């Protein structure tokens, strides 16, 4: 049981990291990014390939994962500069699909749908499986803590203020003297870097990645986590990720207790319950668990 709880906390941490990355792009700068799994995938593949094929040390691989995703994020921000809202959503969705299809088809590089296995983990094999779990738990939540502190600072700084302004009215932000594109590029880059780092950490925890792992389902979970937690608030991203993980895993035990239904019906009930809980949460807390608040008060 403990091993399971630890493992789920590791996953929750990875989800929290992804939600934080998404929050910079979407929550702060208002750029709808439904392709986050693409950036996660880029980070995961970059680190996995560099550590397994070129034998880079792991920390370098993780950093490379973040950098590759960040570069893609910068490129994306430049390409979609003119697009807003839902139009941006489809382009980012498409981007994630492209990443997944390239990973599936360019076998020479990515090993195709077979995926990459044997990705090293820190001290994996040297310590007990549970020891490894605990080490990774520390690493992941340390990463979450660092990302949280840095991003919360960003969010409450003048930089964050400009991003919020851009989110709501680009023209006004431009007239206020802010180079809108440059701000967007930076926000997208930072967010994508966090997503890429999350992907890299993910790869080295599971030891295996495959294109199917970066299907839209993961995007849906993270987006739901962020919305449940509260878009815009960095704390919300973390709370939301924990909440979604609790739902995903908690429903397992609940659905196990229902008598008289077939396994498929149980599976259907479980997924249905996850969806329903999120709908209910939004219904009664439309701003999420932690609504965005402004920190800049006239009289501090």
């Amino acid at each position: 049981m403990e091993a399971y709880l630890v493992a789920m906390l590791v996953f929750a941490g990875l989800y929290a990291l992804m939600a934080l990355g998404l929050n910079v792009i979407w929550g702060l700068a208002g750029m709808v990014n439904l392709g986050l799994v693409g950036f996660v995938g880029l980070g995961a593949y970059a680190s996995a390939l560099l550590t397994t094929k070129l034998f880079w040390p792991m920390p370098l691989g993780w950093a490379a994962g973040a950098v590759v995703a960040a570069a893609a994020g910068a490129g994306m921000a430049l390409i979609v500069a003119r697009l807003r809202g839902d139009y941006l959503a489809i382009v980012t969705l498409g981007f994630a699909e492209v990443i997944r299809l390239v990973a599936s088809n360019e076998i020479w590089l990515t090993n195709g749908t077979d995926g990459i296995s044997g990705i090293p983990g820190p001290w994996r094999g040297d310590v007990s499986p549970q020891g490894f779990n605990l080490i990774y738990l520390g690493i992941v939540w340390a990463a979450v803590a660092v990302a949280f502190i840095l991003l919360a600072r960003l969010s409450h700084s003048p930089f964050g203020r400009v991003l919020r302004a851009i989110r709501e009215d680009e023209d006004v932000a431009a007239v206020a003297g802010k180079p809108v594109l440059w701000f967007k590029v930076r926000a997208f880059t930072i967010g994508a870097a966090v997503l890429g780092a999350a992907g890299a950490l993910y790869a080295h925890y599971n030891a295996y990645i495959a294109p199917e792992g970066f299907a839209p389902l993961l995007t849906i979970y993270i987006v739901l986590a962020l919305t449940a937690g509260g878009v815009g608030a960095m704390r919300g991203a973390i709370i939301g990720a924990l909440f979604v993980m609790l739902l995903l895993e908690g429903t397992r035990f609940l659905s196990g207790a229902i008598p008289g239904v077939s396994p498929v019906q149980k599976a259907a009930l479980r997924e249905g319950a996850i969806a329903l809980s999120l709908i209910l949460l939004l219904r009664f807390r439309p701003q999420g668990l932690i609504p965005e608040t402004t920190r800049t008060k006239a009289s501090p």
Partner: protein
Amino acid sequence: MEDWRDLVQVLLNGVMAGSVLMLPAIGFNCIFAVLRYPNFAIAGFATIGAFAGWVANAVYGWPIGLALPLAFLASGAVALLAEEAAFRPLRAAGPLTVAIASVAMTILLENVIRFGFGNDLRGYDLPILRDWRFDGIRVNPQQLQNTGYAIVAAAALFLLLGFSRLGRAMRAVADNPVLADIKGVDPNRIARVAVFIGGGLAGFGGMLIGIDTSIDPLTGFRVVLSVFAAAVVGGLGSIPGAALGAMVVGVGEEMAGVVLQPAYRSVTAFLAILLVLMFRPQGLLGGRN
């Protein structure tokens, strides 16, 4: 491409593929046009429609011509229920929150169907017709008929929105619901009409997809990306735009074999979308907002 016929055939295939996406895309844009949020639950509504029609046709032996209207009514009713119970209270929180809730709704509906029907693939009780051939180019009469249905529905809705009092009220509510209320329109009633029509069209389209392929709980989910893409490329909220966008996406996907490889079907469609949006950020027929 050895022959001009091959190119014509690919275009024609694209139109066929597009016409399957067309009705759900129109339904999507119909809801967007009034409520201004992307309703991804359209995927769930499509599946509901497909199954309602299947029950009528394969279980109770109704002809397709009767089962289709039933699919429309059933999914329209479910859409209405989803709107009233789940989405309406969220509208104040902004379109993105509603959009996210609609994703959850799709998962919920998918699993409601799964609970009732399991994962098996099912087909309608309908003979499959051979293609007609014209000078080496093949067209399938059933698919042609589906295209016909889609175009008629699009045209009817376009006329309704463009020229009737109801259509004007719908657009007014989309623009400024509070002012519409001041002028005597019940914005909720208008919203309900739009959601019913939009959800109904999605279900109708879902059943056409089922007729063309077969159905399972993922029927709607499989096409939702393409449907959303069609709506966006055509211009969000534009009815003729959705029809046109569906064609662009359909042709884009069928071009995969020509441009890249069939394994990159989605990629070619995506490149087509990107290309369109580069030049028209508001979609082909979308107005500015």
